[in-house]
């Protein structure tokens, strides 16, 4: 059992005092940003990335990953108690969770969601061990054509699954790819679009773009909506225990949610958000008493809450074994790898087992900490919402500014931050998800390099990409999902069925 031994080694790394502390800090910050509507996990990870420069690579990644999955816990807490989802992956939880609060079962909802998240996190770790090792093995056989096909497919999937208008998502992809060409190009070092600036020749920094699109844009949205006072329910500790019947109702949804979440996480797209919707719909569909949904059905909390944690684990798989991030959060983790001189991908497991297995094991440790941290301290965390919102918004904005500046001590990054923030606010107004832009900015250079290598290897023959079964398969999957809904609609119209094509949800 090589995997078990390795995982044991990983626990050794994760339980080292420095890493244990980093994990604790990460999940604590994650819980807080999950609760606060002003800043989500992506913004917080971008914000803290510069402060991890001095840490060991494994320690830095353990902390950043902790923020990512920790936010899934915090987000659900406010969804359940005050009907204010702290971040997008907890929107679904609010449907049943807040109803349960109204029925006086807030404590049960919180416990079930925490336990569900923990179990899903554990399933996710097992999933990573099984999948990532296998995928990394396969990936050793990937050549440039496969990498090219994968980036193209990934971006197509992402723009289809991001919701809203596909054309707009594709414009986001185009902007991201265009920004990705700025600076020294990956093969010969030729400077493009730098206008003679030394700083621009390093390319456009990912972190200020993300901080702007997520952090600054959110602050502008808070400024727009004005200052509201949250109405906070009080939860007593003895109400925390679900009844035997509630446990029974939740156990299968948790199991199903974990698996569905993990699988959704593997697919490029807004995995955590999508996973919660899929899990909720599934529970509602297979329930023998669907009429209870919408009135505080505990399954509708257990399933989605397990699913969003499962998805955070699933999303780590393509990053760790292929070195390709398909979501803004994993894009930041990639940034952290690169800053520490590491390249995630098929060779990571062999070259830096301490980082790979330490990170995986720390996700298990972190989930256990979150369980202990969240249940007794729920009241304390929720009281964070009592902080005056204008103070919070101002300080978040200030932190974005200092954080972006401290990356390279450059004013250019501040201008990138400000521009991204204004654009991000505009995108919210247009109901466009900025995730494809972020991911395209990261994948662009990988895509260019693999495309040019492919053409070089094939002596300029485009068709070589289609001569390799693996790259063809990857492209076909991407195209099928991308064009699928449109084709189904055309087919339905041709058969004279209902011509009304449902618009993608916004």
């Amino acid at each position, binding site marked *: 059992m090589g995997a078990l031994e390795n995982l044991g080694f990983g626990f050794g790394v994760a339980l080292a005092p420095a890493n244990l502390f980093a994990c604790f800090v990460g999940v604590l910050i994650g819980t807080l940003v999950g609760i606060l509507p002003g800043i989500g996990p992506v913004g917080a990870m971008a914000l803290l990335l510069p*402060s991890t420069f001095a840490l060991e690579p494994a320690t830095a990644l353990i902390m950043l990953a902790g923020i990512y999955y920790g936010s899934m816990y915090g987000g659900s807490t406010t969804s359940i108690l005050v009907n204010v989802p702290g971040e997008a992956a907890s929107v679904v939880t609010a449907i049943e969770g807040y109803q349960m609060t109204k029925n006086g079962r807030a404590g049960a909802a919180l416990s079930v969601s925490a336990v569900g998240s923990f179990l899903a996190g554990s399933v996710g770790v097992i999933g990573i061990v099984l999948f990532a090792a296998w995928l990394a093995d396969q990936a050793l056989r990937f050549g440039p054509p496969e990498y090219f096909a994968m980036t193209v497919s990934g971006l197509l999937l992402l723009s289809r699954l991001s919701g809203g*208008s596909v*054309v*707009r998502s*594709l*414009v986001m*992809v*185009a*902007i991201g*790819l*265009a920004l990705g*060409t700025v600076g020294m*190009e990956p*093969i*010969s070092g*030729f400077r*493009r*679009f730098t206008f003679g600036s030394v700083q621009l020749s390093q390319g456009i920094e990912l972190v200020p773009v993300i901080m702007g699109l997520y952090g*600054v844009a959110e*602050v*502008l949205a808070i*400024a*727009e*909506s*004005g*200052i509201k006072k949250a109405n906070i329910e009080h939860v007593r500790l003895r109400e925390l225990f679900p009844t035997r019947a509630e446990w029974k109702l939740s156990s299968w949804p948790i199991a199903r949610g974990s698996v569905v979440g993990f699988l959704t996480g593997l697919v490029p797209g807004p995995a955590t958000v999508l996973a919660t919707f899929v899990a909720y719909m599934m529970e509602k569909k297979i329930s023998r008493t669907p009429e209870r949904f919408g009135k505080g059905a505990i399954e509708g909390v257990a399933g989605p809450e397990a699913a969003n944690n499962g998805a955070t684990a699933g999303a780590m798989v393509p990053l760790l074994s292929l070195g390709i991030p398909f979501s803004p959060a994993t894009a930041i983790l990639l940034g952290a790898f690169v800053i520490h001189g590491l390249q995630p991908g098929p060779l990571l497991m062999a070259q830096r087992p301490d980082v790979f297995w330490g990170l995986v094991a720390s996700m298990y440790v972190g989930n256990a900490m979150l369980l202990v941290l969240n249940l007794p301290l729920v009241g304390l965390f929720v009281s964070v919402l009592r902080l*005056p919102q*204008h*103070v919070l*918004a*101002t*300080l978040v*904005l*200030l932190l974005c*500014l*200092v954080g972006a*500046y*401290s990356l390279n*001590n450059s*004013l250019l990054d*501040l*201008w990138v*931050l*400000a521009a991204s*923030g*204004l654009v991000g*606010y*505009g995108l919210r*107004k*247009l109901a466009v998800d900025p995730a494809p832009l972020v991911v395209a900015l990261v994948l*662009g250079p990988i*895509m260019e390099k693999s*495309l*040019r290598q492919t*053409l*070089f290897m094939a*002596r*300029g*023959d*485009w068709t070589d990409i289609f001569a390799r079964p693996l790259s063809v398969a990857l492209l076909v999957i991407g195209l099928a999902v991308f064009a699928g809904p449109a084709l189904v609609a055309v087919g339905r119209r041709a058969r004279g069925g209902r011509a009304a094509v449902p618009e993608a949800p916004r």
Partner: protein
Amino acid sequence: MERLAALASLIAAGVFLAGALPLPRGVAARPGPGFYPLLVGVFFCATAAGFLVETIRRRTVVAPVAGDARTRVLVTAAALVGFVLLLPWIGYPAATFLFVAGMLRALGASWLLSLATAVAAAAGSYYLFASILSVPLPRGVFLD
């Protein structure tokens, strides 16, 4: 508003493509630095054009932001840009003080809360970042 965004992205796409054209493209077997930007530029133009067509064919109304809400957004945006503009001149502590005080006051905090938070934020964050984390924040004309 939507059409404006579409138009802006089309213009950006055009500018990008124009910038990509003069770059050396190389030959198919050995693509140069201008090869991939050209593809991206064409894709950018195509999608932006599609976006424009979509906004013309199907008009969705973006709820206008008016009145106080608009003022608050504009003030926040101005504080952000103002901070970046002033930072190299007056230095981090002074810029932070003005930024925090101005933004809080504009968002409806009392003078007392605004000024107190601004002093605390400027001093606290300067100490934390410049002294403890040794980020070389600009000190500006007052401290130098």
